[in-house]
């Protein structure tokens, strides 16, 4: 990961959080909430550390993290790009646009770019069929796209 989240500083913060919660019954959830805040996600290395310091089996932690939708295994990007794959967009060549975004950002569909900047999602119809094909970057909407527009849009962020 280009943007390293697994820094010593972050682990130190995690350690302090765990120290603070260690005596508490049912400390796992509060610790996971903090871990999600500190690292932006709860990847394997972080879960292992929590497991060791809190004395909770890794399999249980993994089960808890994947159960609750607010905990994520991978960081979400700073910008979430949604390419609409609703029917209207799809027939107007949304797929090549999606492919182009993936190529330019390095984020796979449902994943995040190596630098942590972009997350890419193929969304259901966002109801802007008149503008098809459409993509959104966080709150911004771009419509009537051709593949050639994609580099310009990505470059803005």
């Amino acid at each position, binding site marked *: 990961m280009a943007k390293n989240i697994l820094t010593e500083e972050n682990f130190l913060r995690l350690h302090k959080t765990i120290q603070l919660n260690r005596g508490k019954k049912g400390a796992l959830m509060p610790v996971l909430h903090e871990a999600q805040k500190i690292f932006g996600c709860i990847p394997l290395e972080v879960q292992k550390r929590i497991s060791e310091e809190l004395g909770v*089996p890794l*399999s249980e932690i*993994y089960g808890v993290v994947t159960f609750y939708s607010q905990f994520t295994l991978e960081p979400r990007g700073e910008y979430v790009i949604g390419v609409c794959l609703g029917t209207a967009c799809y027939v107007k060549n949304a797929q090549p646009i999606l492919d182009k975004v993936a190529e330019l950002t390095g984020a796979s569909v449902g994943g995040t770019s190596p630098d942590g900047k972009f997350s890419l999602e193929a969304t259901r119809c966002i109801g802007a069929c008149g503008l098809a094909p459409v993509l959104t970057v966080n709150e911004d909407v771009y419509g009537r796209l051709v593949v050639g527009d994609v580099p310009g849009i990505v470059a803005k962020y």
Partner: protein
Amino acid sequence: MITLKINGLEVEAEEGSTILEAATKVGVKIPTFCHDPRLVPHGSCRICVVELEGGRNLPTACTTPVAEGMNIQTESKEVVETRREILDLILANHPLDCLTCEKSGRCTLQDLCFKYDVKETTHRGAKKCHPIDESNPFYYSDQNKCILCGKCVYVCSQLQGTNAIGFAERGFPTHIATPFNEGLAHSTCVSCGNCVSVCPVGALMPKSKEKFRYWETRTVRTTCSYCGVGCQMDLVVKENSVVGIDPVMAVPNDGLLCVKGKFAFNFINHPNRLKKPLVRKEGKLVEATWEEAYQVIADQINEIKTKDGADAIAGFSSARALTEENYLMQKLMRAVVGTNNVDHCARL
């Protein structure tokens, strides 16, 4: 004692016991997938639902405690319909490969579908799709066959204390997984195989060296010879060879085994197994007759004993020999040779 009625039959049951226990005691069979008397009741599979007079829903027999005056039907029309519906739902998300599935003949799902005449699923739609985890040398995990009864997870955490596997995700995508799906070989799994022993379907299966069907086998009760605990186990025997081992629900092991007891039986039929004695001649081990071998042993024991005394001799025997053989070996050392220098690999 509490009095209740099960299928019209008056039954006495201890306070705090479950409907399932009360029924079992009087020989009424209620089907289960997820129940295991050793585990904290969790009521996941719902196949053991029964009809309780005056009840709003169908309670599960495995979790509901008996109460005075209960009137219970275990195979009423509604119960049977519900069980059929549940089986239908399970089948909708289960490969129907009984023809080649190694669990066939000993699969609870197969047995219950037979019992309730569920031939196939009436549903179509999404099915789970997981890669088979073959990373463990002794058993494999095929989550596509898993019915999520949860027994493997709870046996691993509550009885074995290893916590190698757990539930991952939620809802329809829920599955049993090692952390980050990294595979059993990368988990804390100690290969005890207790999860394999409790799996009601073919999701967790021993890697078998030999093809066999359960109906071709018979079982032979024996005591595990690997260590001094004395675990009870059943050898699964096809023709004249051991093809599997099951733990027995008895003292002292209560249905559990370790990796050796559960899986380390392949030496029995192994082609490299010594069947004739070898005697070292000019630095090389050569096949000999039993008479010749005994002569060598007797001569050398006598020689050492005369020269250095009995305590210069020690006997070391193997866990892979029979318990009786081990007994005889130590008897020979103590009574005939005259030394207490005996040892055994299980002590290590």
